[in-house]
């Protein structure tokens, strides 16, 4: 009998295609919005987590000057030196230390050229920033010490300079310096802020300082901590060492900053989840409005179909059967809306994830929840109109024009 009622409901829905479509539109939009929001939110969370992993789990970054938020000139504080980096690598908490300086330059190979970021650092940079080599080798100690004109390039740079060719062993020109490619990084993909991490040329820091920039600045020092060391202890040891080296008196503030990358990543994750929650709840409100839309149309439908209800009662339908019919109709409508909404929401989320280059992370639980919720909306908002239909007096209903 229930199956029969579901079939009847489908027939009634098909008989009024336009009205049915307009009825479910609210639920479609509501469900699609929730699905899209949650899926995109999950995707960007996954992206942030992946970035945390690519940063390395336990990495601290030192910069000269006090920590500043937002734009504005940095305080005038003494730069780091390579000797600072050597001192840091003597710390027991440090697993790898990478003094780094960067400069923008155009690199040329044959007829191809690309404006990119030249990063000067040491072999420790690979460990501290979690880079893997796809090909070739890292810097030798002699190359580092002498500031040899050698470089390791990222996948993006390789593609634009060499196309499909093998870069290792080739000489590229960086500004006016001819530089031998000794290695190729495995691709990392987009970073936390959507930047292309593979757009990189890594050279020994002394080569960048002497040959490209002509000054001895070290912009920042990245320290990867040993696995057993907590970020708090690492920060404390580093601060003590640097305060000592920079001769900062007791009671005076640091003139450098130590940033915990994992902290930034977790902050990004929580901002992300708050935003996702907020947008999802707005979407949920639209789902509620969609439900009210269903109730509205079902009430109109009951009035419009009063005579039909009268006929059904006359041929022997009980009021329970009329109630079931209208309730099932509402549920079928809203579930239909839910299914269309899920499809639409997933499509939207897929498009958005392609656009924002984040992973497409549909969640079965969210889809199931949206499906159940749309059925629930059908029951809740279908009940009142259905009860009204069931309570009609057959004589009045048959006389209704």
């Amino acid at each position, binding site marked *: *009998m229930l199956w*029969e009622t579901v079939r*009847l409901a489908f*027939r009634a829905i098909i*008989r009024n295609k336009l009205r049915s479509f307009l009825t479910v539109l609210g639920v479609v939009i509501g469900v699609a919005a929730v699905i899209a929001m949650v899926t995109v939110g999950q995707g960007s969370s996954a992206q942030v987590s992946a970035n945390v992993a690519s940063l390395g789990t336990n990495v601290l970054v030192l910069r000269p000057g006090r920590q500043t938020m937002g734009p504005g000139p940095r305080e005038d504080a003494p730069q780091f030196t390579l000797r600072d980096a050597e001192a840091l690598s003597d710390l027991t908490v440090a697993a790898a230390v990478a003094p780094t300086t960067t400069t923008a330059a155009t690199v040329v190979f044959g007829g191809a050229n690309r404006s990119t970021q030249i990063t000067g650092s040491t072999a420790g940079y690979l460990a501290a920033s979690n880079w893997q080599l796809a090909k070739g080798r890292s810097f030798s100690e002699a190359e580092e010490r002498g500031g040899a004109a050698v470089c390791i390039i990222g996948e993006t740079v390789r593609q634009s300079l060499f196309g499909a060719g093998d870069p290792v062993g080739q000489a590229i020109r960086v500004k006016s310096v001819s530089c031998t490619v000794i290695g190729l990084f495995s691709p990392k993909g987009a970073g936390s802020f959507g930047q292309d991490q593979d757009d990189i040329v890594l050279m020994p820091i002394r080569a960048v300082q002497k040959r490209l920039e002509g000054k001895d600045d070290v912009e920042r020092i990245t320290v990867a901590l040993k696995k057993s060391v907590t970020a708090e202890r690492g920060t404390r040891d580093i601060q003590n060492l640097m305060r000592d080296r920079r001769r900062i008196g007791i009671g005076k503030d640091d003139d450098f900053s130590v940033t915990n990358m994992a902290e930034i990543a977790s902050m990004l994750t929580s901002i992300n989840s708050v935003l996702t929650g907020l947008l999802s709840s707005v979407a949920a409100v639209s789902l509620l409005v969609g439900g009210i839309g269903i109730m509205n149309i079902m009430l109109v439908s009951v009035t419009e179909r009063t*005579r*039909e209800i*009268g*006929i*059904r*009662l*006359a*041929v*022997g*339908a*009980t*009021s*329970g*059967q009329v109630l079931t019919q209208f309730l099932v109709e509402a549920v079928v409508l809203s579930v239909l809306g839910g299914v269309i909404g899920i499809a639409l929401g997933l499509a939207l989320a897929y498009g958005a994830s392609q656009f924002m280059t984040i992973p497409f992370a549909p969640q079965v639980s969210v889809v199931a929840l949206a499906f159940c919720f749309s059925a629930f909306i059908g029951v809740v908002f279908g009940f009142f109109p259905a009860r009204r239909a069931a309570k009609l007096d*057959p*004589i009045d209903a*048959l006389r209704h024009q």
Partner: protein
Amino acid sequence: MTPLIELRNVTRSYGKGEAEVRALDGVNLTIAAGEFVAIMGPSGSGKSTAMNIIGCLDRPSSGQFLFKGAELQGLNNDQRALIRRNYLGFVFQGFNLLPRTTALENVELPLIYKGIAPEARLSVARAALAKVGLQGREGHDPSQLSGGQQQRVAIARALAGNPSVILADEPTGNLDSHRSHEIMLLLQALNRDEGITIVMVTHEMDIAAYANRLVVFTDGLITGDSPVKVAA
């Protein structure tokens, strides 16, 4: 033999106190199985109210209504629905077919509520349509059928439930005289050949003439009850 339908001193009043209107004012009526009864009377005479009570759509304010000898006074709405489902068939003036629904589906409707399986339902519905002369029109919408054909579908729908009684409320009211004649011959045949009891309300004497008994209502009372002369 127990009469099929028996009204004993039935009253039906609407409103209360000063505003009270008595549609039926103590009606006694007995209809035996196999009769073809025409009910006539001016509007407001109580004939429709009597039909509604016989059709289990309304209940008397006082008095007794017996169907197959059983008192129906105490039945609730769902039990009345079961009586309608199993023993009664309705034919209305305005046909009352479901729009945008094929003739076959319209005829199937009472069978769905009887809980008959789809295959059996289809063959019963087809047979009922054939009986009213509508073979080949099963897939037509009411809007694609003439008034006479629509009324035939409605009669087939009433027949499909295999009723003891067909209650016809001005079945020819919306039809021209030619179609009216056809419909009345059909009802007459069903009464004669299938033994279905028919109770019909009508305004027109020549339509009432197809019945074999004429009951006249005036001001909530039966004022005439006589056999119809076959001469008509």
